[in-house]
């Protein structure tokens, strides 16, 4: 009741909070706004989101933000410690500015994140929902294939794929996606099995809807939220796997400023020049943590099991 003083802009807020939307778009907007409101109440998740927005901005404005060219070597200024003249985070063994490399490296990280997000959960969603809805032989065959993929440790399988496909960032992403989808397929299948027998699915069946329509329009929207949460929580692991491949020399190739590759380069100097490996390590840590925090917050908002109230 004491909110009346904010009468300068109640219209948009009220419009978004109304229980009686007047059009399809309005209804969608209210749902999104309500979700945003409950997400906003989780400060840790907001920190995660903030870090990731910062990462996107840094990647977009890399050319402006970076004080040096990330590839230009200056052997006169090699192995400068942090906070030295012109090199806030120090320079590496070839005299390249670590800060600039980190800034450009954020583009690669985002590239990996985006590609994996497009590939792995989508494949998992397809396989999982089809297996769960169809049941019988289809289910058995699809799930055994999934089991085969799950039986290998992730990094080992990724290594094998990269070895077969050749080193490089795209292949690394592909390899990571190939190892990541089975977990999503499992989740999607489990969700589908419960949704399949619910009355609202029976109800659309009674309107004559076919299996494809039921899967795409009725089951997917419910699986997507738990997959989004899971992918976000997994993203830290995916970034680490990409960094691991980079570290092993199977991901991004030098002189690319990929963070894992940077750690790998710094390995030789780690005892005398700690910052070369530490700075990209901290970057990976921060972004991984941000994804975890975001994932936790999203779970509170999107997971219908807890968010019933």
């Amino acid at each position: 009741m004491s909110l009346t003083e904010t009468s300068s802009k109640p219209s948009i807020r009220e419009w978004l909070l109304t229980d009686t939307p007047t059009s399809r778009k309005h209804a969608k907007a209210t749902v999104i706004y309500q979700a945003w409101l409950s997400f906003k109440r989780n400060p840790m998740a907001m920190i995660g989101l903030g870090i990731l927005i910062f990462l996107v901005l840094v990647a977009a404005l890399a050319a402006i933000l970076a004080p040096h060219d990330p590839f230009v070597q200056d052997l006169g200024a090699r192995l400068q410690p942090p906070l030295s003249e012109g090199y806030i985070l120090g320079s590496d063994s070839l005299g390249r500015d670590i800060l600039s490399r980190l800034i450009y490296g954020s583009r690669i990280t985002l590239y990996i994140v985006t590609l994996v997000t497009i590939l792995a959960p989508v494949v998992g969603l397809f396989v999982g929902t089809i297996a769960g809805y169809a049941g019988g032989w289809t289910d058995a065959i699809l799930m055994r294939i999934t089991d085969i993929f799950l039986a290998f440790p992730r990094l080992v399988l990724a290594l094998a794929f990269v070895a077969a496909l050749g080193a490089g960032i795209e292949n690394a992403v592909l390899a990571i996606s190939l190892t990541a989808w089975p977990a999503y397929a499992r989740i999607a299948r489990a969700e589908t099995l419960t949704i399949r027998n619910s009355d609202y699915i029976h109800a659309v069946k009674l309107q004559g809807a076919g299996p494809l329509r039921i899967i795409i329009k009725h089951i997917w929207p419910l699986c997507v939220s738990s997959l989004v949460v899971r992918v976000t929580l997994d993203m830290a692991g995916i970034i680490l796997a990409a960094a691991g491949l980079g570290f092993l020399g199977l991901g991004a190739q030098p002189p690319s400023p990929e963070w894992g590759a940077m750690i790998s380069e710094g390995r030789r100097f780690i005892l005398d020049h700690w910052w070369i490996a530490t700075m990209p390590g901290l970057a990976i840590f921060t972004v991984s943590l941000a994804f975890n925090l975001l994932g936790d917050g999203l779970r509170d908002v999107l997971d219908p099991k807890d968010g019933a109230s």
Partner: protein
Amino acid sequence: MSNLLDVENLWVRFPTRSGVFDAVRGINFTLGQERLGIVGESGSGKSMTGRAILRLIRSPGMVIADKMDLEGVDLMGRTEKEMRDVRGKEISLIMQDPKFSLNPVMRVGHQISEAYRLHAKVSKSEAKRKSIEMLEAVAIRDPERVYNMYPHEVSGGMGQRIMIAMMLIPNPKIMIADEPTSALDVSVQMQVLEIMDKLVKERGMGLIFISHDLNLVSTFCDRVLIMYAGRVVETLSADKLHEAQHPYTQGLLNSLPRLDAPKDRLQVLQRDPAWANEPSVSA
């Protein structure tokens, strides 16, 4: 005072995003060695009242009361640890579905003995003897066999009788039954209620029977409170149900289809927003 329970100005409040939601808004009632029914529709605050007596409202919900005394002893000032001794031993709660109240991986007999041994320091064999006696008391025909069964092996009606046995074994002073038979079939419902009724009478306990079913409550209670929007709108002696004065109570009674008095259209309850703001009736 011979009152078992004395409640004055009880509130249950939940802070939410858009302000504080009051589920129960300042109700007063007393309970003697009698059967008190609390009736209302979903959202009326009847279940919250039952849970508030045991201080079982989950955080961030709050229980506030000027007075909540069990036989003259204050309940509000007790710590959570002290409340744990009250729950089960002095006041027990029976909930709607026995499926969710019984531990699925433990034999029902063990659960009853455990419940007994938690409050009474007796040997295992003594607890078992007492449990079987209790199962007999709730009209279970083959108590030895049922003692060794798992919850999924018993029917809903039997499950609820087992719950009653378990709740009665520490000999509590008050029993709160929250929709104890709503999950059961009509014919079983009667049997379970009759058993509960008999045991409560024999032991001189106080019963709070929470239900949405006005007729059922009036059959098994001495007094009835009718709750609406967190307040008590009317209190009646159960045999005078049909003399109800409040339009809400009348509306509830008239909206039920009756097998013995058919009519073409059922009366629809017209809710008056003023009901929610009327002062709560003391009971």
